[in-house]
């Protein structure tokens, strides 16, 4: 039931601030509203205190060096073969590489000509050592170039993507190098796989350029995470609720509340005031992120709600931030937040950290929490249907029950620490309604792949994201030395108790 007393809800009639927010967000393909088209017709200036969420997502300088490795022409026998169109292939891949770099915001330096002599290779290696790009992309054009690729990787010690179009590698060529830390090998004709490799480099740079606000306790300090290089700024929890108290129920807040309500398939508990308060949480979070030059946050929200410091839990606001590509994590779970950043930065889509519940009758994992994003297929893709609910544990404020697409593959990721990631995959079976179930609002049943018993799924607050991204995540972890752990494939079996031996 929509209980909004707000009468000014016509489609396309948005305030100045919201309009400009949508325009700037649309430019980056990031907006949570589905009603953008009608809003674009007006020209308005932003309010001076408006925080553009697009600017909160990191946009690091990411430098890639690319080169083709070939043998002296003309080719005669040996793979890829005399008939292989070298010039045409290289022109095509160069065009695709330029497009990918432009799309991903990468700075590309490509060797003007393919390298085919030892001297060329030495020059390349020395140049790379001097210029220190973030990664090297080598495209192989002959099977005899693997030794050179190996040398570039070893001698530069830089993350190296090796693209071996079909016809330039046998299994034996990949045996060692493709499983070595710091290397990502793509033996394929699929260009999207190469772009995924480039995204790995960009994601690492985004981690390095990010600052997470860790909102909890009373301390204020700053540290840096091992391996990821992400800065963690701890700030007192009261900072947030004091800022929330100052945030007005202004045009921006009302527009957000209105748009969010209008996009809902159904509204059950939240009334208009709940929605405005949730929008104030969102604007407070943006303001705090901007003030602290931060790009993500994780807050002791349960403690705040427990102490009744805010009238609404931040769940609904966190959903909006997630859809804008800004990680907003729950319960001050830092590694939960970095796991969400991984799907945001590497896969361009939100995830939600979940409380894992074993459904033993059906042998399914129920992944449950109150802060799922809605743009499950990507930040620039349409939203999934959602229902506006209250935060289940407190029955306060706004939380979103996102209806995830049934029968879709999903991936679960969780950093145990910055050096180790739990990764599992499964297939979404159904959405779980609350009630009859208890627990959090977005709740989905998952049939796990390669995990015989749902009770054995590893981790807590694993982050659920749509799609099977195992290969991409494995590639990222291998490039940057992050150890991967999977839940046990085989079930644990009941062990009868043994009586203590008599002495």
């Amino acid at each position, binding site marked *: 039931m929509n209980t909004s007393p707000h009468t000014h809800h016509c489609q396309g009639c948005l305030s100045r601030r919201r309009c400009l927010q949508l325009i700037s967000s649309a430019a980056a393909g990031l907006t949570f509203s589905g009603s953008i088209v009608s809003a674009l017709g007006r020209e308005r200036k932003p309010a001076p205190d408006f925080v553009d969420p697009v600017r909160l997502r990191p946009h690091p300088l990411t430098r890639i060096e690319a080169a083709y490795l070939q043998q002296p022409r003309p080719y005669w026998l040996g793979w890829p073969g005399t008939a292989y169109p070298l010039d045409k292939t290289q022109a095509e891949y160069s065009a695709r590489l330029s497009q990918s770099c432009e799309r991903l915001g990468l700075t590309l330096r490509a060797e003007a000509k393919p390298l085919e002599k030892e001297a060329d290779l030495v020059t390349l290696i020395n140049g790379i050592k001097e210029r220190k790009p973030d990664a090297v992309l080598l495209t192989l054009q002959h099977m005899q170039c693997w030794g050179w690729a190996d040398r570039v990787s070893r001698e530069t010690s830089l993350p190296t993507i090796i693209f071996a179009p079909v016809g330039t590698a046998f299994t034996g060529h990949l045996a060692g190098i493709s499983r070595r830390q710091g290397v990502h090998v793509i033996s394929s004709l699929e260009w999207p796989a190469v772009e995924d490799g480039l995204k790995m480099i960009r994601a690492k740079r985004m981690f390095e350029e990010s600052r997470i606000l860790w909102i909890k306790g009373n301390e204020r300090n700053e540290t840096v995470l091992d391996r990821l290089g992400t800065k963690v700024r701890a700030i007192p929890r009261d900072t947030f609720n004091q800022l929330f108290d100052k945030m007005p129920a202004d045009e921006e807040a009302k527009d957000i509340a209105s748009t969010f309500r209008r996009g809902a398939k159904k509204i059950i508990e939240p009334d208009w005031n709940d929605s405005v308060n949730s929008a104030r949480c969102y604007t407070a979070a943006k303001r705090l992120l901007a003030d602290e030059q931060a790009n993500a946050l994780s807050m002791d929200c349960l403690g705040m709600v427990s102490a009744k410091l805010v009238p609404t839990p931040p769940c609904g606001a966190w959903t909006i931030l997630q859809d804008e590509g800004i990680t907003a994590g729950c319960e001050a779970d830092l590694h939960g937040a970095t796991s969400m950043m991984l799907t945001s930065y590497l896969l361009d889509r939100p995830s939600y950290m979940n409380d894992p519940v074993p459904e033993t009758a059906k042998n399914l994992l129920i992944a449950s929490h109150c802060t799922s994003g809605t743009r499950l297929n990507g930040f620039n893709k349409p939203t999934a249907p959602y229902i506006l609910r209250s935060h289940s544990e407190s029955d306060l404020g706004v939380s979103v029950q996102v209806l995830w697409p049934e029968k879709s593959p999903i991936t679960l990721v969780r950093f145990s620490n910055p*050096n180790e990631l739990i990764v599992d995959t499964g297939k979404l079976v159904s959405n779980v309604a609350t009630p009859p179930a208890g627990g959090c609002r977005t709740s989905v049943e998952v049939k796990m792949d390669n995990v015989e018993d749902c009770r054995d799924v590893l981790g807590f607050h694993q982050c659920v994201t749509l799609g099977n991204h195992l290969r991409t995540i494995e590639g990222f972890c291998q490039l940057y030395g992050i150890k991967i752990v999977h839940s046990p494939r085989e079930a644990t079996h009941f062990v009868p108790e043994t009586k203590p031996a008599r002495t």
Partner: protein
Amino acid sequence: MKTRCLLGIITLGLACLAKPAPGAEVQFTSPGFAPSKMDAQGRLLEDWGVLELKISGSEMADTAEVKAVKLDEVNQAAQSSAQHGGVRVTRTAYRAPVWPSGLDVLTLRLEETEGREQSVQVSLALPDSARVGSRTISIGNRAVVALPANARASQSRRNWGYDDDATALPGWGKPKVECDPAFRNIRAGMGGVPIHYRFKVESNVALTVVLGFCESHWETSGQRPMTCVVEGAPAQAVDCIAKWGQHQPGTLQFAGNDQNGDGELTVTVLPQTGAPDQNPILNVIWIFTAGHTIDATQVMRGRLNVQAMHYVDVGGANDQSLFAGGQAEYMIKLPAKGAQEMTFLVACVGGSVPTPERTAWTPEKLCQAAAQVWREWKEAR
């Protein structure tokens, strides 16, 4: 060129109970954390004790001073300098803002100033309570110093002991049945660190090795599968829960020998690839002369301890490092007008140091992180 040996002995001492000498002290920290101090003698004053860098031997320092400096223009640091004959010794310490508690980075720089090649012995003198691992030094279960990556310490060795960075957890095991008390204690390779012991033996000798385990964390199998490797014997995989159950002690027997003839028998327990719990554990080691019939039940109950060549209560009272406490040494050769740096990572207030093999931190990255945090730091509004 003739090498002038032992110009000076530089002793880096860990003296937990030592009091700082009076005189000037320089504090350094990173934003929001309690500071550490360097005193006039260039010693680091930490919450776990004093990390001392002092000069001993025939040639004492001509001068010594400590001052506050800025690295990369922003990074708070303390620096102590002294001239020891023909070698200039500079110790620089700053706080690296490593999550969660930070750590102190102490760099020792040795510069030859007399224009001839010289050898310097850097000695790491340690109290008996400090346990030396392969790359870290621990007090209790806290890793307090990570040793430099670019130098290998030559340390006096005992006849047997652990040579790893695993952690002792006394009282972790809760055996439900009568067994040797050593089943109550373990060492655990936290973060996937292998547990590794060496025993001095006669070259090429054959021995019977029995390893004892008691899993008291997991209730279900499949969580902590491990591989046990005894030199000269086939490796054995073990999942304690699957084999014996929770809180149930059990043993594995190996027909080992000094296969490579180096006069040492090695025993290693490591996590299986892909194991959900990557922390290997080990409770007990018995080593018997070969040829004896070993009754597993009697071994498990501790009734053959006296017959064993070695009985190790792993993580318990009679356990020990392979390296004797008190001293570890580095021999440094300095070319004429040359210099060398050694970087020690040091635990600061409330923290510990990471295991070097398992971290991506390097001295360069630590310095960059410190500078970046200082540049972008601002106090609360």
